[in-house]
C-alpha cells in the first residue's frame, strides 16, 4: 500500500469593511434590496472615471501588516477582461503586476504542533454582481449591489498538508483580519470565501500531482468535508486508474457531499490582462504605513493575554470573548461604561448569548446598546434590582431599546429591601403553608425552596433573594416568637 501526501494551496477572498465601493461612492453594505446600491459607474455605464477608494487601500495595508507581508512601494491596477452578465463593464479591476503586498507569513497551531504558512501575495480587486435564476419564468436577473465592492484575495503557497491545517489557517486569518477591522469575515454572508487548490502525490515525491480547484464552500465544516472527499477521489484515481484526473475547477455540493466538475473552459479563457490606464499608480509610502500600523486595534491574542493577566479573568471566558471580534467589541464598549470586567464578561456570556441563541443569532450577529447594557449590569451589581429582573430588562433593551434606569423607575422594579415588608410577607406565607414550614423545621431543606418561591412571588419578584432567605430562616427558627 502506497503512502500519499496531499498538497494544498488556498485562495481566500475577503470583503473589505469599507462604507463605499472600490471605485464609486455607492454603499458597500450587505443585505439591501436588489440593485439598491448601484450608480452609473458600477452598472457599467460609460462616463464615470474610476476613482480609487482610499479606505480600501488602507484596509489592504492593514491586511498586509497583520500577515507580515512585504508591502509594494508603488502598486498598480490591471484589467482582467471577460464577458459575463454579472460583470457590467466587461472587465474586472484587479492587481497582477504590482499587488499591494507579497511574501507574507502566518503561524498556525494544530494538534500536530506549530507551522508557518507562507503567502504568495495579497491583491485588491472588485467583486462581481449576482445572477438570480428564476426557474418559474426561465429568466435570469442580475443584481449589481455587489459589483465593485472591494475585496482582497490572499493567495497562499501550496504549504498545506491536512484539512486541520487549512481550518486552523482560516480561523487565524479570520481572527487577524476581523480584529484589525479589515473585514467582518462572515463566511455565511460571503464576506470570506475560500477556494482550495488540491493535488495528491506519492509521499516523498518532489513532483506535484494533477491539481484541481474546489469552489463554493461556505463553512469551515464544508471545507474540511470537501478536502476529505477530493483527496480521496485523487487517491482512488491514482490507485485504480478508473478515472483520469484533469486540471479543472470543481464545485462542492454540501448537501450531496460531493464535488462536481464545473465543465468550464477555464484554461481556454484568455483574460487579456493589461495595466489599467484609468488608475494612476499608488505610492504606499512609509509614513502612511506607519500611521496605519500605529492605529491597528489590539489583536485577539494580545487581548486574550490582557484579559487573563491584567484583568484576572478566567481563560475559558476570555477565549469565548476573543473568539469573536463582535463580542470583543461589546466587551470593550460595555467595560468603558462600567468598569467591572468580571460582571461584564459574565453578563455577555451567560445572559446576552443565551438570548441571542434563542433568536438564532451567533457571536458575530448579536448586538446591544453597550451604554444601556453597562447601566443594567451596574443596577444589578449595586443591588438596585435583582438579577432576574435584570434579565427581563435586558430583553426589553434588545427588543425596544428601553433605558434601564427609567424602566425600573416607571415600573417600580426597584429591589424590595424594606425588612418590615419582607417580614410581613414571610409571616403570611408561613401561616398559609404551615405544613411546609413544619417540614423545614423537621430538617427537610427541600421545602425551603418551595417557601422561597412563594415568597418571591408575593414580593413581585423584586426582592433581594439573599435578604428574603435570611428573614425566612429568622422566622423559621422562631426568632419572632
Amino acid at each position, binding site marked *: 500500500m502506497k503512502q500519499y501526501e496531499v498538497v494544498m494551496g488556498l485562495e481566500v477572498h475577503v470583503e473589505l469593511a469599507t462604507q463605499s465601493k472600490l*471605485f464609486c461612492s455607492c454603499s458597500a453594505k450587505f443585505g439591501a434590496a436588489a440593485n439598491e446600491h448601484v450608480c*452609473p459607474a458600477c*452598472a*457599467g*455605464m*460609460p*462616463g*464615470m*472615471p*474610476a*476613482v*480609487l477608494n482610499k479606505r480600501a487601500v488602507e484596509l489592504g495595508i492593514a491586511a498586509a501588516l497583520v500577515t507580515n507581508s512585504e508591502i509594494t512601494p508603488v502598486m498598480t491596477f490591471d*484589467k482582467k*477582461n471577460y*464577458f459575463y*452578465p454579472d460583470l*457590467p*463593464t*466587461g*472587465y474586472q479591476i484587479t492587481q497582477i503586476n504590482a499587488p499591494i503586498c507579497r511574501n507574507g507569513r502566518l503561524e498556525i497551531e494544530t494538534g500536530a504542533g506549530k507551522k508557518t504558512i507562507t503567502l504568495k501575495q495579497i491583491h485588491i480587486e472588485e467583486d462581481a454582481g449576482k445572477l438570480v435564476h428564476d426557474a418559474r419564468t426561465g429568466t435570469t436577473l*442580475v443584481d449589481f449591489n455587489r459589483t465593485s465592492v472591494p475585496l482582497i484575495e490572499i493567495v497562499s503557497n501550496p504549504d498545506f498538508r491536512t484539512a486541520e491545517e487549512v481550518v486552523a489557517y482560516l480561523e487565524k486569518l479570520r481572527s487577524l483580519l476581523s480584529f484589525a477591522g479589515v473585514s467582518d469575515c462572515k463566511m455565511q454572508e460571503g464576506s470570506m470565501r475560500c477556494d482550495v487548490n488540491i493535488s495528491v502525490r506519492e509521499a516523498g515525491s518532489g513532483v506535484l500531482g494533477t491539481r484541481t480547484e474546489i469552489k463554493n464552500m461556505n463553512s469551515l465544516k464544508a471545507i474540511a468535508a470537501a478536502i476529505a472527499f477530493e483527496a480521496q477521489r485523487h487517491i482512488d484515481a491514482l490507485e485504480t486508474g478508473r478515472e483520469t484526473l484533469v486540471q479543472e475547477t470543481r464545485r462542492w455540493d454540501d448537501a450531496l457531499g460531493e464535488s462536481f466538475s464545473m465543465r468550464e473552459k477555464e484554461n481556454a479563457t*484568455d483574460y*487579456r*490582462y*493589461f*495595466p*489599467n*490606464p*484609468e*488608475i*494612476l499608480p499608488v505610492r504606499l509610502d512609509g509614513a502612511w504605513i506607519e500611521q496605519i500600523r500605529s492605529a491597528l486595534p489590539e489583536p485577539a491574542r494580545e487581548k486574550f493575554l490582557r484579559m487573563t493577566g491584567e484583568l484576572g479573568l478566567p481563560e475559558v471566558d476570555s477565549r469565548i470573548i476573543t473568539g469573536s471580534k463582535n463580542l470583543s467589541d461589546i466587551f470593550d464598549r460595555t467595560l468603558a461604561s462600567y468598569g467591572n470586567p468580571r460582571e461584564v464578561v459574565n453578563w455577555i456570556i451567560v445572559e446576552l448569548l443565551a438570548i441571542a441563541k434563542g433568536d438564532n443569532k451567533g457571536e458575530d450577529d448579536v448586538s446591544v446598546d453597550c451604554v444601556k447594557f453597562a447601566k443594567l449590569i451596574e443596577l444589578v451589581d449595586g443591588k438596585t434590582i435583582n438579577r432576574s429582573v435584570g434579565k427581563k430588562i435586558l430583553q426589553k433593551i434588545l427588543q425596544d431599546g428601553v433605558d434601564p434606569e427609567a424602566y425600573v423607575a416607571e415600573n417600580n422594579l426597584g429591589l424590595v429591601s424594606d425588612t418590615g415588608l419582607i417580614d410581613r410577607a414571610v409571616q403570611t406565607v408561613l401561616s398559609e403553608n404551615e405544613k411546609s414550614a413544619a417540614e423545614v423545621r423537621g430538617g427537610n431543606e427541600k421545602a425551603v425552596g418551595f417557601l422561597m418561591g412563594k415568597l418571591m412571588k408575593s414580593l413581585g419578584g423584586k426582592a433581594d433573594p439573599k435578604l428574603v432567605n435570611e428573614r425566612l430562616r429568622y422566622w423559621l427558627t422562631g426568632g419572632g416568637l
Partner: protein
Amino acid sequence: MVYLDDSILQAGKIASAGSKMLRNFAAPFDAEVVTRLNEPCERAVLGEFGLEPPKSLPDGVLLCNDVFGHVRTVVAERGLCSLRPTYGTVSRYGLIPTACSMDQIGVVCRTPAEGFSLLARIAGHDEKDGAMFPDARYSYEKPAQAPRLHREALPYADLVEPVFHILAYAEISGNLSRYDGVKFGYRAENYKTLEELYTKTRTEAFGFETKLAAVMGCLALSQDHYAALYDKALRARRLIRDSLRFDLYDVLVLPVESRLPVLAGLPSLTFRGVQLAAGVKNEGALLAAWEALS
C-alpha cells in the same frame, strides 16, 4: 454657441458617441465640462467613438475628445484651430471613454485665443476624475519676441504610428466590452443563448472601424501576442516620450496632415515623409501626454 461632441454627457440627452450601440442611451448626469461651462450647448454627432472621420463639423466652438485625430484632419483642411490640452488637465467625468491613457477633451475653434479662453473655463482639478494633475491653468498671450528656429531630428518618428495604434486599440477594446446588450444601449432582437446575444448585438450595432479596433485590441492583448505587441508598445511609448526634449525647445512645429485636401477632380496625394511627421504631430502628443495646437 458651444457644441459638444456626442460622447460628452448631458443629463437626459442622448449621448451616442456616434454609435448605433448608444442611440437610445440617455445620459444620467452632466459631464463636469458641461457643469463648468454653465451655458446652453448644442450637440454634434462626430464619427463613431472617434474612430471614423466626422461627416461634418458644426459651425462654432466644439469640445471633443479627438484621440484618433480624425477631427484634427478636417480642422486642418478647413483652416480652423484645434487645441488639445495636456493630459489630465480637463476632467473626463461624463466623457464616454475610448483609450483612457489618451482621452482628453479639447477644443476646435477659429483662433487660439478663443480656444484658450474656453479651456480656462473648463480646465482644473476635479476629484471625480481619478487621473488628473491637481494644478492646471490656461491663459493665452502673444509672445513678446519672434521665436528662434532650430531643426530637430525625431529619433523614433517611425515608431509613433504603430505604437499609438496598438495602445489605443488595446485600451478601447476593453472600454467597448461594456456594450453587450445586457444593461443599456442597443440589444439584438433574435438570440437564443447569451453568446448569441453578445455576438449579434455587437455585430449589428458597431461600425467597421469600431469592430476593427476591438478585434485588433484583443489581438494585441492576447496571451500569444502580448509580449510582442502590447508590452513592446508600452516600452516604446516611454522611449518616444523621453525623446521629446522639451527641455531644449518650447514648441515642436510639424505638419498636421500628410494628404492634401481633396480637390474636385483630383486624387488625394500622400507623401511618406510627411505622413510620418504628421503621425508624430497627432499621436506623438497623445503618447507623451503633451498638449498640441494646430
